[in-house]
């Protein structure tokens, strides 16, 4: 896996299970947390528990109405999403990024119904009616994947709006200055859509661990370097600098502290044509997570090599053992003891 996947496997699996066996009237109440503090809570209340809640309150006639209503209930899944806490410079409207509600409506249509106000502690609560899914197998699967990528739809809404304008080469009147978009808790990245034919995206890169900072810095420098190779002429041009680039003049000071430098991408209309738009939105949105993932992967790769090196050194030490000891080990056949350096030295002395 080189790129992070957009649909959440967790949501997709639950939704698929629900669609395949909707009659399994099992209550479901699951939480999950994704990178950058995106939380999901998915709930299904089956017939029985809804009825139990109702019987305590309503009279018989109303119970019948309740029954009809709750008969459909196993198809209804309530999905709540909580987003990272936005930094002061990024603007949220009613707890959601700009244009999120429209994006949800456009993406899910009749299947999802936004509940207002959302569940306590969450930014968005949707009621998904699985009986309204398209009957065609392929379309249904596509829509389920889309629901599972709710993160991309909601958090990516403003970015998508800007990039869509870029594709049609227009500048929306209110969107001409520096825009801060949240991508991590209390951290944002910046968009500069001043010109009609390009959008500049700037990421201040921050890491917690000192090893990570070093690895990420060299990773980013390599990234710039490899962008120059012949095969990648059409990729967005990118730059890395240890200090804030000039484009970020107007940004608040606390947003400009970064310990692994600043990365700038310049996106041209050819990068957001047609189907490329979705992928570009997702890649830009998760750039930090992508770098952090690859830093971890390279650490893992280094460990693999270190382990292999230690093994080869131990083999070399084993070969250096005197003949008598080797044969002794063969007879017992049970020696798990690894030779330490000191012991090896004393052995060679004796």
């Amino acid at each position, binding site marked *: 896996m080189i790129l992070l996947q957009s649909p959440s496997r967790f949501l997709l699996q639950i939704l698929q299970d629900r669609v395949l066996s909707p009659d399994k009237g099992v209550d479901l109440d699951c939480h999950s947390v994704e990178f950058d503090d995106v939380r999901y809570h998915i709930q299904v209340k089956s017939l029985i528990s809804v009825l139990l809640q109702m019987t305590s309150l309503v009279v018989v006639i109303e119970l019948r109405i309740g029954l009809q209503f709750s008969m459909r209930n196993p198809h209804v899944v309530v999905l709540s999403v909580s987003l990272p806490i936005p930094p002061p410079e990024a603007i949220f409207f009613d707890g959601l990024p700009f244009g999120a509600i429209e994006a949800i409506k456009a993406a899910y249509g009749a299947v999802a119904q936004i509940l207002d106000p959302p569940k306590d502690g969450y930014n968005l609560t949707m009621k998904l009616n699985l009986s309204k899914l398209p009957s065609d197998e392929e379309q249904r699967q596509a829509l389920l994947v889309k629901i599972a990528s709710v993160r991309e739809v909601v958090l990516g809404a403003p970015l998508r709006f800007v990039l869509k304008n870029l594709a049609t080469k227009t500048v929306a009147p209110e969107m001409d200055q520096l825009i801060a978009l949240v991508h991590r808790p209390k951290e944002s990245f910046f968009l500069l859509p001043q010109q009609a034919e390009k959008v500049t995206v700037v990421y201040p890169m921050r890491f917690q661990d000192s090893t990570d900072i070093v690895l990420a810095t060299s990773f980013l420098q390599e990234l710039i370097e490899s962008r120059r190779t012949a095969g990648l002429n059409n990729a967005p041009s990118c730059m890395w600098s240890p200090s804030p680039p000039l484009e970020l003049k107007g940004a608040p000071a606390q947003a400009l502290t970064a310990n692994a430098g600043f990365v700038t991408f310049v996106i041209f209309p050819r990068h957001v044509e047609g189907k490329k738009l979705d992928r570009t939105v997702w890649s830009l949105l998760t750039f930090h997570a992508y770098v952090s993932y690859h830093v*971890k992967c390279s650490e893992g790769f280094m460990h693999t090599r270190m382990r292999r090196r230690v093994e080869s050194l131990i083999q070399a030490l084993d070969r250096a053992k005197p003949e008598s000891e080797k044969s002794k080990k063969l007879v017992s056949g049970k020696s798990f003891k690894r030779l330490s350096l000191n012991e090896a030295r004393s052995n060679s002395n004796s």
Partner: protein
Amino acid sequence: MDAASRPAVVIDNGTGYTKIGFAGNVEPSFVIPSVVAVNESFLNQSEGRSMGNYIAQYNAGIMADLDFFIGEEAVSQSRASGIYNLSYPIQHSKVTNWDTMEKFWQQCIYNYLSCDPEDHYFLLTESPITSPEDREYMGEIMFETFNVPGMYIALQPVLALSAGCSTPKPQMTGVVVDIGDGATHVVPVVDGYIIGSSIKSFPISGSDITQFVLQLLRERGELIPPEDSFEIARKVKEMYCYNSSSIVKEYNKYDKKPEKYIKQWTGVKPMTGVPFSFDIGYERFLGPEVFFHPEIYVDDFRTPLPDVIDMCVQSAPIDTRRGLYKNVVLSGGSTMFKGFQKRLQTDLKKIVDDRIAASNARLGGDVISHPVEVNVVSHPVQRFAVWFGGSVVSSLPEFHESCHTKEDYDEYGASICRTSPIFKGMY
């Protein structure tokens, strides 16, 4: 928001399946086979990666150290193409290949849970036979590679006991009978502590039952496609096998009413697409019978599981034995056979009662000893008991204080993982 306020990640690495999920949930989010398909081509690569090498790899469209799959995908990928080698990092509940184990965790975290390991505490599990060195390795990988803020390595049997903590009468004393895919252990736990010297193991586990079912099917001459035979036998085992109270009765039942008891299996051969079908007969009850009569499957081990449990309790300190008999807890997928709990209960009870009767007879009626209560407990989450226990434990408020933390690791090194952090200051 700091890591302690987010739910912890609970990963239970079993020999057959790995259970992954977040603390506070009732079920693991993912249950995937513990297998990695690795592309070994990057091993032969020359020392010191030069730029040219990178471009060659890039042009070939691979990033060889990232070119691997885990779980179901690994199995299907290795079937589809020849460049992947399947590697099972855990064998007989012991990690044998740390390289692939690290890769496995990496995918669990980033691909399946898609969470940031720096944001969460981790709870990992180990079997009672894990060595301190293995624990150090585990800590090293978690802290060095993934930078987790804190980690706790819990013992599987203790977690299986804590899974019962959600019941009205929580008990931390009991014998855990853990039958997984790769290993079977009988572990006595007293007040949450394992009595290490009394741990008994039983050489038959889930995969052996599968093997035995397959053997029975083959001996009868059923036509099973060889490339898929193990998979089919596993499904037969999971769907149709059960424990009977007596084999003789069961044989009679089958002979009198074959149409009621003998099941049909239909499928399609994966290679040719030709449909096939075969009968499932006596193996339905003979498979799980191996636990009670191991001699029908292996030659060199003849002690039935109830006797092993009894030996285990008898070797424990005398003041704990009543408590242990009272709470025999089942855990692991292979205890899910219908009737398994009932059968174990009857057999174990019989052994204990016989012993008491013998001792009463020997004392000649002067002293009558109290009858010993024997309870084999099964609970609804038995299949994921260990994971569920982990989920319960890691949602306790004390959990975060009892973890090995990153600061401790940076200060003292991997040796902190040798002991439980609950006994802080003892290392």
